[in-house]
Structures are given as structure tokens and as C-alpha cells.
């Protein structure tokens, strides 16, 4: 398959949240979330209750996919940073480690320069964590270790979902 399955474990989830919470403070931003390129929300911090993060995640991934398609058409690998400027709120969207999307929502209490600077630092830390996560998943797969929750499910479990 073109993309290995994304798996998130407790340990890395906590580490990721520490990094994005720090970024939230240091970049003076309102909301930060991480989305995988397929549009699944990985995590979010800040004022997330105010926003429909599931929809935002899906549209962000669509946005990155569309600009990625444009990049290829002009001979670029990808556009790694997108910036959307609104009247009050702005979105800074960047690709981390080639496969995860980092979204920072900020208003006039911060600035694009500050956000860019802090995102760069946080991206390096996130890349390290995501690489480790990938290695971990591969190791588990190789060793045949199955803590996979669905290995034991029965047809009844599946049918019950639809009852």
C-alpha cells in the first residue's frame, strides 16, 4: 500500500500534546491541531470546543491535497506551508515530516512571523516523534505482536454496530 496504517499510542500521543501545547503558548495562538494527510484528526489543543474540528480536519487535508496537486503540475514536490489570512483569524498550515499536517489558528495577538518561527521549531520535534511512532508500528508488525483491538471481533460485534 502507498501509505502504511496510522497508529497512535498513548506515550507518543502525550508527547505530541506537550509539543503542540507549548507551541500554542509560544506562538500566542488560539487553536492548534494535527491532521493526517487522509483527513483524520490526530489531536487538538486550545479553544477547540468552539470549532468543528472534524470538518476542519477533512477540509485541511483536502486543501493540502489540492495544493499538492497544483505543486506537482508546476514541477514542485509540494507546497509545505499554506497561509490563509482572514479579517480576524488566520490559519497557518504546514506539513510535518512529510505526512502530518499542523494547523495553527491565530488572531492579531500573534503574527505570521512569530507563528512561522515557532512552527519551525515544533515541526522538528514532531517529526522525531512521528518517525519513532512509525518505527514502533513497524516493529510491532514484524514481531507479530498483536495488541490490535479488532483481531478478536466477531461478526456479531460488527452487526451490533448497525442495530
Amino acid at each position, binding site marked *: 500500500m502507498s*501509505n502504511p496504517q496510522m*497508529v497512535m*499510542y498513548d506515550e507518543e500521543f502525550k508527547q505530541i500534546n506537550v509539543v503542540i501545547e507549548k507551541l500554542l503558548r509560544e506562538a500566542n495562538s488560539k487553536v492548534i491541531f494535527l491532521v493526517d494527510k487522509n483527513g483524520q484528526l490526530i489531536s487538538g489543543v486550545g479553544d477547540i470546543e468552539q470549532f468543528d474540528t472534524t470538518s476542519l480536519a477533512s477540509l485541511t487535508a483536502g486543501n493540502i491535497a489540492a495544493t499538492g496537486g497544483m505543486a506537482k503540475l508546476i514541477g514542485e514536490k509540494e507546497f509545505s506551508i499554506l497561509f490563509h489570512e482572514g479579517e480576524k483569524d488566520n490559519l497557518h498550515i504546514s506539513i510535518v515530516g512529510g505526512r502530518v499536517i499542523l494547523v495553527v489558528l491565530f488572531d492579531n495577538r500573534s503574527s505570521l512571523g512569530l507563528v512561522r518561527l515557532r512552527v519551525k521549531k515544533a515541526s522538528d520535534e514532531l517529526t522525531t516523534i512521528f518517525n519513532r511512532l512509525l518505527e514502533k508500528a513497524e516493529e510491532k508488525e514484524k514481531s507479530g505482536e498483536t495488541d490490535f483491538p*479488532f483481531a478478536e*471481533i466477531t461478526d456479531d460485534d460488527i452487526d451490533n454496530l448497525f442495530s
Partner: protein
Amino acid sequence: MSFINYASREINCKIVYYGPGLCGKTTNLQFVYQKTAPDAKGKMISLATETERTLFFDFLPLALGEIRGFKTRFHLYTVPGQVFYDASRKLILKGVDGVVFVADSQEERMDANIESLENLRINLEEQGYNLDKIPYVVQYNKRDLPNVVSVEELRRELNPTDVPEFEACASTGEGVFETLKAVAKLILVDLKKGK
């Protein structure tokens, strides 16, 4: 690919509705949206033109419930059916876990069905998927119309590999949930194998 989050105990899967223009992909999602309890669904998003033709995609998140303590979520997407939106269609297939091919049963749309199905196979291959190996079901839509092709003929042209197939009328909802359940079930069975 599905996303398994052990930290929040969630599993997310992506289903894509594919098919020729005006075959009823968006209508399928709209019916699912209307008939799902408010706490089990998110907002339905349609990126459409002023004439309500899908421009990029429709998106509907559904939470089906729990399996073994894991919240099971399905993200439903449609592609734009019109031929010239091919670049967009390819993007939406990224990370797909299961596909529904919605065929328009009307006689005059037969060529469009065949073309769209070939297009699906090619676009999946570009993403590294094989249509014969992923969870996949076919829906024969618009069975209520007068000028429809027989199911036997549709099957011969569009379902040679004999995957689960459903007759439907998406505007009244007939067959819509049956189709969705079938593809969701195939995805979960695939996950069970732990591929």
C-alpha cells in the same frame, strides 16, 4: 488507511462514493445524514457549485458506536462525478478504506457507468490500491425510473467480480443504508484480519 488511536480509543475509516456525474452519490450521503441521530453525525460538508454539482467533495462523519471499547467512526466522502474533475477525484481516493460504486441504472448512462468504473480502477492503481483487493460494493441506483437496464445486464457490465451489490433509490433512501452497512462491514472484517 484507517487510523487507530490507542490514546483516545478511536478507530477512523474512510469510505468513498464513486460513480459518474449525477448518479446520486451526494444524494446517498444526504439520506444517511437525514436519517442518522444527531449525536452520531457531524456536519455534512458539500463543496459544490452554485448549481449543486459537486466541485471537490462532500464529507459526512459518522460515529457508529463502540467495538471492544473502541469508538468506530466512518468518514464518508463523495467524488465529483463529472469527467473533467479527474484531478480532484484522485486526491479524494488517498487513504481510502472502502469504495462504493454508485451506478446510474438508466439505459443512456450505461457508457458513463463503464467509463467511471474504469476511471476508478486506474485512479486507485495510481494510489497503490487494487480494486479487487479492497472493500468494495456496487449500488445500482435510480431503480424507480422507467428506462432502467436490468440488474442482470448491470451486473454483467459493472460487477464481473461479483462483489456485494444493491438496488437502490437514493432519493427515497431505498438501499442506501444496506449499501453503507455492507461496505462498513467489509472494512471491519478487513481490519480484523489486521492486514
